[in-house]
């Protein structure tokens, strides 16, 4: 608790002293007229009078103290007490890479996911988003960025493409040029690589940022990827990347661990991520919310000194003192 206008206190004290002196001098000038009486024990010895006198004195004291406290509180409030706190603002510094399988079966899920992120991006503040699409090859649509306007246009374009609008076929260029399709391991590896090298090089100096990949795929692998899914998962683990997998078509037959859905789940949970199987594109937003919750890491930014006015305490004290002064005045009224 500090006082902005600290000079108020000495000023008020000086004014108070001067006012007291003036009042004393004036009071000495005109003494109230006196009625001299004798044998005061006629009244003063009465227990009722003693009691009344005690309570009178008590109320006088209360009135005097209340007035003093009221004045002091008013002066303190006038001196603008401020609360200066050192706060560490919570910053949201997540890095999210959308990793979308653009094979034919994924169109509607991708569209829903992109839509959700287009909405989320409007509220983002500090998060960075990157996007990678893959089929037989992985293509980075845009790297991690916090240029939300750019993200928004890119996501809009992606959505149009996923919805099959005219003139958007070029969007998927470069994803088919390899052999096979849905080379998930390669796609995930590309996504993981799109994070800054970070701890590997020791070049990362900023605050630690959480890293997550949102991988939308049905895990129908055809062809031979450079990275297997498990290798890509290991890469993610070493880089501290959580892989959240969305699998709209979990067609596992049985619980065997080599089924595509089970493998994807194992990899996702192995990196500390979430595995979800949205029944319909509509449920994607719920899953993203869940992912957001697990990723709710907040980092402390540099401490900041914040100065706020806090007149509540002196004003409350003044209010109470004023109330008790009123009560005392009422009690003192004969």
């Amino acid at each position, binding site marked *: 608790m500090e006082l902005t206008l600290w000079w108020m206190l000495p000023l008020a004290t000086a004014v108070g002293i001067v006012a007291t002196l003036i009042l004393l001098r004036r009071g000495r000038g005109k003494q*109230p*007229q*006196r*009625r*001299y*009486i*004798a*044998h*005061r024990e*006629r*009244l*003063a010895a*009465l*227990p*009722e*009078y003693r009691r*009344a*006198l005690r*309570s*009178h004195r008590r109320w006088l004291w209360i009135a005097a103290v209340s007035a003093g406290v009221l004045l002091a509180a008013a002066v303190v409030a006038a001196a603008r007490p401020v609360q200066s706190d050192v706060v560490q603002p919570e910053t949201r510094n997540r890095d999210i890479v959308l990793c979308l399988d653009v094979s034919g079966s994924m169109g509607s899920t991708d569209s829903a996911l992109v839509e959700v992120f287009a909405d989320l991006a409007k509220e983002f503040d500090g998060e960075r988003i990157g996007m990678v699409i893959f089929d037989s090859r992985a293509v980075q649509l845009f790297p991690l960025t916090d240029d939300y306007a750019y993200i928004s246009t890119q996501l809009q374009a992606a959505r149009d493409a996923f919805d099959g609008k005219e003139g958007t076929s070029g969007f998927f260029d470069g994803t088919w040029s390899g052999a096979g399709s849905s080379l998930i391991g390669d796609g995930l590896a590309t996504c993981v690589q799109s994070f800054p090298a970070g701890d590997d090089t020791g070049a990362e100096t900023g605050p630690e940022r959480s890293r997550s990949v949102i991988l939308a795929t049905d895990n129908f692998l055809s062809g031979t990827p450079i990275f297997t899914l498990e290798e890509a998962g290991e890469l993610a683990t070493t880089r501290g990347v959580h892989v959240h997998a969305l699998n709209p078509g979990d067609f596992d037959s049985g619980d065997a661990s080599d089924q595509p859905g089970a493998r994807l789940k194992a990899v996702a949970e192995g990196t500390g991520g979430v595995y979800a199987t949205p029944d319909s594109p509509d449920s994607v937003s719920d899953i993203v919310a869940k992912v957001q919750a697990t990723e709710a890491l907040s980092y402390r930014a540099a401490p900041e000194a914040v100065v706020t006015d806090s007149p509540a305490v002196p004003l409350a004290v003044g209010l109470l003192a004023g109330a008790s002064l009123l009560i005392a005045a009422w009690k*003192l009224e*004969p």
Partner: protein
Amino acid sequence: MPSLLKKVKSRLFIAARRRTLGMLDGEYGSVFKGRGLDFDELRPYVPGDDVRDIDWKATARHGSPLIRRYISVRRQTVLLVADTGRNMAAASKDGNAKREVALDALGLIGFLALRHGDDVALVHGDAEKTRYFPPRTGEEHLERLLGAIHDSAGRESPRSDLSCQLRFTLRNFRQRMLVFVVADEFLPDAETESLLRRLQARHEILWLTVRDAALAVEAHAELAPCPRGFKTVDISDGTYLPDAPAARPSVRRAYAEAMKEREGVRREFYRRLGVTEGVTGGDDVVPALFRLLELHRMTGRAHAG
């Protein structure tokens, strides 16, 4: 200096519409002068005269009551005893200083004594000193006595202690005389009682009590005990007596109760000693004196007879 005696006389003549003087005069005469053996004159009856003094034969002849006056047996001395301590500068019940009320009463009695050819002496003082003025006659003498009382009972005077004046009186005067004491509503202690008892055996005592100022108004009374803008201060030591607590109904009730009891104790004290006591609030000195003299005659304390 305005004549104190003149003030007394004007009170007697104007405020009481002339009749009072005659009444008081007759009362005084019948109480104190008594009847000598030598017939002096017949004069018309005035209320206050002793019925025994009426000359019934002359009255029957004349048609209206006539009083036989005798030449006084002897010149007697009236000793005025006054407290002129600090207490008497305090307010009386009607607001004036008790000293002023005492002056009225002493002046009246002194004046009546002079009219009847008696000598007037004065003993006054406070706790520290007692002054004595020997018996003399004449208005100048009375004026001097009143002036002495007026000048000595001030706010800065030593405190009051009437027992000093009573002791002085007891020690110095063997000869029987009429002692007229004016005091305030003090509660006499054991010493005062023994002094008064001895004094009463030797002299004839008339006692006038001047009521002290009320400190709290009686319950349900409208009047404030102290006028607004005034501070009630005890004259003995300057102690400030706040009025606000005294205005509480419970305090007022208790005060009225205590005053009643105190009054009873005081009355009982004088009754026990056989001292005739009168009481005045300040604005009723003449009627109070009349009542006092009347009471004195009724109780048969008058020496003559």
